[in-house]
């Protein structure tokens, strides 16, 4: 048993890694661009400033990096030349689509271009030289360090480093040429860049075999994401540019208070109903309960929610409960009791909806659990030895029949924390479900990723817990 537990715990790590890989790849290959701020779009029409801000945006979210594997160190000079030719349509044949793609590639390749660009400075054509110079002034800018994590000292160091990088970048940024630059200006600037390319820069922009290996796997979106994840850094929201995690944690309490009450309520109602209809199997009572539960089971959540909302809060015919939200906005200070009452008042309808949906499934589970046990031989034995019927049912049947339904609890963990999209949207509760719903629609990748990852992790733990608890309560299961 101990060995089994350890084994399962160890397996959580690779499984979680694979889950993150799956989610990451799905989100990253999905079409559509994150960040409504501009977008790369038509390269030539964008002004410099827009372009710059989009580039920084991409850098910030690592979107300039390849998803899983980075082979950019193997670029050749000729490929770079070709990219420039296509991006600026030098031979006049490139299609608009290809030009945008090439422009984007030039933006994204950054430090991997520098070495080749410096070599391309020797081109005899001044017009081409000018393009190379301008590309260099973009590509030679260095990315900033992450100063959001680690110890205060570490963050301080990162900030200082970033100041230095910022100064260097500013200098590099100014080493560019306008479209009407004279050949002399161009020659001067070319020389300036050659002077800039000092041996220590040469070293920085040529890659050894070891560096290549680490670039191949580590200079990628996925690796960077995981690098942050190890510090529990889920990145910034592309919508409000604030870290995702605190926002997320702030949302959990709404979902949690709704779902815990609902699940507890569902269990407390479902188990007696299930037992009752199992014990009275085949009677009219059982039939009625079964039919009602079946109806509840077949009603979609969003339908129940909408109907309840309309019936009891939109004044059609009743307006007893508030039409949504978690609590009332108010300016005067409330006592704890007032706040509590207010929240409960808001939660009555969502909890009813949630409970009615899970109730049906749970009590059917409870019913079959007890029925399976009642049929077994040891119950017959218990009856035969003269135990009273309630004793048989409560002591033997219920105890064993509840095993499956209780082990289900572990599996509910992710639902409890993540809440329900539908209910939170219908009742406008600002929990996790609504958060991911909004994030999905705004294409807030980091937020979506964080919610998916967090709830997958909880699901993983939930499955583990329910397997282990099953093994604990049921001595028949062995793991050798």
């Amino acid at each position, binding site marked *: 048993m101990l060995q089994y537990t350890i084994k399962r715990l160890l397996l959580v790590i690779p499984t979680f890694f*694979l889950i993150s890989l*799956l989610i990451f790849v799905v989100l990253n290959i999905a079409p559509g661009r994150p960040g409504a701020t501009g977008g790369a779009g038509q390269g030539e029409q964008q002004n410099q400033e827009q372009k710059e801000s989009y580039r920084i945006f991409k850098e910030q979210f690592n979107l300039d990096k390849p998803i899983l594997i980075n082979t950019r160190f193997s670029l050749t000079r000729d490929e770079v030349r070709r990219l420039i030719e296509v991006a600026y349509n030098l031979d006049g044949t490139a299609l608009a689509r290809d030009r945008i793609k090439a422009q984007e590639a030039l933006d994204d390749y950054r430090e991997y271009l520098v070495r080749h660009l410096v070599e391309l400075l020797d081109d005899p054509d001044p017009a081409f030289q000018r393009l190379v110079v301008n590309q260099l002034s973009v590509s030679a800018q260095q990315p900033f360090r992450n100063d959001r994590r680690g110890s205060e000292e570490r963050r301080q160091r990162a900030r200082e480093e970033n100041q230095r990088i910022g100064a260097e970048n500013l200098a590099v940024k100014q080493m560019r040429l306008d479209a009407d630059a004279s050949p002399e200006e161009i020659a001067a600037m070319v020389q300036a860049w050659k002077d800039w390319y000092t041996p220590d820069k040469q070293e920085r922009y040529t890659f050894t075999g070891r560096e290549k290996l680490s670039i191949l796997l580590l200079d990628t979106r996925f690796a960077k994401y995981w690098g942050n994840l190890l510090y529990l850094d889920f990145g910034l929201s592309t919508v409000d540019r604030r870290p995702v995690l605190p926002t997320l944690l702030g949302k959990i309490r709404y979902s949690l208070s709704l779902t815990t009450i609902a699940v507890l309520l569902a269990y407390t109602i479902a188990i007696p109903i299930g037992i009752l209809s199992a014990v009275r199997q085949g009677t009219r009572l059982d039939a009625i309960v079964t039919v009602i539960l*079946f*109806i509840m089971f077949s009603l*979609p959540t969003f339908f129940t929610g909408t109907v309840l909302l309309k019936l009891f809060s939109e004044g059609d015919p009743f307006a007893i409960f508030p039409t949504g939200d978690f609590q009332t906005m108010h300016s005067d200070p409330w006592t704890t009791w007032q706040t509590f009452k207010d929240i409960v008042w808001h939660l009555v309808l969502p909890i009813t909806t949630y409970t009615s949906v899970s109730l049906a499934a749970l009590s059917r589970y409870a019913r079959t659990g007890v029925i399976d046990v009642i049929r077994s031989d040891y119950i017959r034995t218990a009856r035969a030895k003269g135990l009273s019927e309630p004793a048989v049912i409560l002591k033997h049947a219920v105890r064993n029949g509840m095993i499956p339904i209780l082990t289900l609890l572990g599996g509910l963990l992710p*639902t409890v924390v*993540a809440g329900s999209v539908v209910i939170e949207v219908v009742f406008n509760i600002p929990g996790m479900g609504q958060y991911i719903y909004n994030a999905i629609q705004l294409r807030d990748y980091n937020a979506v990723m964080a919610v998916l990852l967090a709830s997958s992790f909880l699901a993983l733990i939930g*499955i583990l817990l329910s397997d282990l608890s099953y093994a604990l309560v049921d001595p028949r299961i062995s793991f050798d």
Partner: protein
Amino acid sequence: MADLESAVDAPVAADARQEDPSYGEIVWGQFRKRRLAMACLYGLVGLFLLAVYAPVLASNKPFIWQPAGEPVQFPWFISLFDRTFFENQVDLFFNTLLVFGTIIAIPVAVVFVRTRNRLRRPRRAARSRALVAGIGAFLLCFAAVQAFPVQKQKEVFPRIQAQLEAAGTEVRAVYPPLPYSFRDGDIDQIGQPISRAHLLGTDNAGRDVLTRLLFGTRISLTIGVFAVALYITLGTIIGSIAGYYGGRVDALIQRIIEVVICVPSLFLILTVAAFIENRSIFHIMVIIAAVAWTSPARLIRAEFLRLRNLDFVSAARAVGYRERTIIFKEILPNAIAPVLVAATFGVARAILIESTMSFLGLGDITVPSWGQILNTGRTTSDWVLILAPGFAIFVTVSLLNLVGEGFRDALDPKLRK
């Protein structure tokens, strides 16, 4: 002693004239004895027929159209395969069923009735031949319909009729009972309450709600059936391979399944759906399938683990069958029953997922899905628009669940009637 053996020689199900029931026939016999499940099955058949014959009940194209002094036209019939009117492949598919399916069904039905009292082998062969031929013919028709020339029937017939009659021209026109389009609204009829003309009123774009519900049946059934067929196929193949080969292959597949199970499916479905531009119901089916294949895979795997050690598998290997044959022809027929039961419930679940997606505005916005109608009802706070689609979903899901339960009980030898 020899007498003893020949005494038990007669098979258990003795009567020689009677047919030897195959497993499928036994299950069907059991199913038929469950009245509620049978009634629900008839209900589902009715729902399917409603979906197929929806244009007969509701269309704004007249069956017959003849302004005085002009030749007779049949706009309704022409519209059936008109890709500018029925833009969706789903509708084209059902319209093909409506026209050609009906025609093909007749000879197939004749074969079935004729072979009712025949002896087993020729009967079964004849029936399966007829069925295969019918399906083949239908698929050919569906392919042919794709090549049907596009018609330009932009006119709104009821309005033209009114204009013509106002100008004094007699028009002979026969409309379906609900002369409305499920797609194009009438701006003069926005938000109408229940009336004789609009039995369930109209929505905020002036479209007849009953008509939309009717065509929504097509969407729901298609999504349910095709998504489930897709993921059952996928899950069955993967589960068979995992269960048959075991060992490393199994461990790998198990890991993949565990990964997919852990990702909360509704979140993932909604996310992927939102990231697809111009999503159609085909995307939705694929997304549902991509998330749901794990449950049949697990069921099949468990069955295979049980079955692969039985001697008949060794016997098949000893005879020399290929592994592919052993997996799919020897073991699979013994393992598939629980999956088929799960599939029935799966159709209900897929319909629920699709309507949830539509309700949240992440479905195919071009089709009259029930969830979408309900969402309209929520935003416009209109009782009819909430209750009618909700009821439609509830009935469909209930029918499927009850049929599934009947099917499951029919498979359970402990519950034989």
